[in-house]
């Protein structure tokens, strides 16, 4: 395991722990999805396999720590990253607006899939969750903007492909 991989895993572990603390401490509508932010950052800037392996295993850990049925959060993370990258694929590669849109779409898709899979009775609880989902997406985007302002946009944008 290289130092970069260990650092990425540590960052993801911290993000999951922080997400759990936020979920436990704040009302659901007031929680930004820092787990997803970290996942997207790692997908762009560390290794493409974070989009599949990373999303699956981190989702599995998230679900286990939140005592949710296994597989639900993995599915949500996989679909969120996939759709967010699909949206971003239609936009310019290195634009802060595109990144912001990607984060918002990923947050919405992640929460929507989680509610669809975990809400009981199925679909009945969805209307009640729509407003909190929108709030979470807005908050996640706001956290992304804040981190961007503090660290500089360029550091969060995807790097140019490395020469092999």
């Amino acid at each position, binding site marked *: 395991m290289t130092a970069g991989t260990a650092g990425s895993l540590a960052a993801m572990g911290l993000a999951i722990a922080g997400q759990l603390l936020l979920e436990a401490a704040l009302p659901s509508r007031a929680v930004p999805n820092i787990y997803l932010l970290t996942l997207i950052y790692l997908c762009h800037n560390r290794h493409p396999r974070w989009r599949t392996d990373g999303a699956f295993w981190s989702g599995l850990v998230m679900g286990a720590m939140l005592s949710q049925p296994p597989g639900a959060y993995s599915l949500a993370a*996989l679909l969120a990253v996939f759709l967010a990258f*699909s949206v971003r694929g239609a936009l310019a590669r290195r634009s802060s607006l595109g990144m912001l849109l990607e984060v918002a779409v990923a947050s919405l898709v992640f929460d929507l899939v989680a509610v669809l899979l975990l809400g009981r009775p199925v679909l009945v609880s969805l209307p009640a969750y729509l407003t909190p989902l929108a709030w979470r997406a807005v908050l996640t985007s706001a956290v992304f903007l804040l981190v961007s302002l503090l660290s500089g946009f360029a550091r969060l944008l995807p790097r140019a492909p490395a020469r092999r």
Partner: protein
Amino acid sequence: MAPMGGGNRGGSGRGRFYLYLAVSLLLLVFGGGAFSGAAGWLGARFADLVAGDSRRPETARLREAVTALSLENARLREAALKSERYRRMLGITRTVSRETVAGRVLYRSEGIVAGMEMVLDRGREDGVEEGAVCMTPAGLVGVVDRVDEATCVALPITNPAVQVAAAVYPSGAMGIVRSDARGRMDMVHVDIAAAVGPGDRVYTVSAGGTLYPAGILVGEVSSLEEGQPGLEKRFRLKPAVEMESVEEVIILLPPAADGET
């Protein structure tokens, strides 16, 4: 769609994506049951390690014994509760100089309070006759209306067909307790000058040789209607006994032929 991997790894990235998608779905459908089953199996093996093999005949026999004792314990607890209830009933009946028999409510016309009837598991073979008074430690329940060989039908005092001569304590004002078709109990024909207030208790009286023994609690005054016309007072009563939840009653058998009242 955006490529799932970078550059020439797009095909394998997409393959891994679908693979993980399929695994997630399988976990979602079967994972919970599989994990809990595996956890149960591991727990059982760990218990075997710590407490011995649960599949041994001796262990199975002890397990059955524990189950049987637990059931017996539950039955004894229920018996103790009933014993306490009957003891209180007997304490009450010591004040009444009549033969009594305890009866269980077998059926009650629930839902519509007015016109409620209770079927009790005591009948003519137990000495019950028409007009026998039913009560609980809390107060008066009603009167037996019809008697069969092994069961009888009692009308509670919230039934419009039942009227009870009663007196208010402490004022001593006398009147008649009766209920309307909706099960609301009133005391009527009370002296208009009587000082009666909410919370005053109402007891049976045996004036004129009525079938109710004196001194059984009927209920308490819940509200007074001001400005009533006429020369008598009437007020609303709250029954002393919750007719919808009573399970057992004491049936006061009719007085002996020697004229006891």
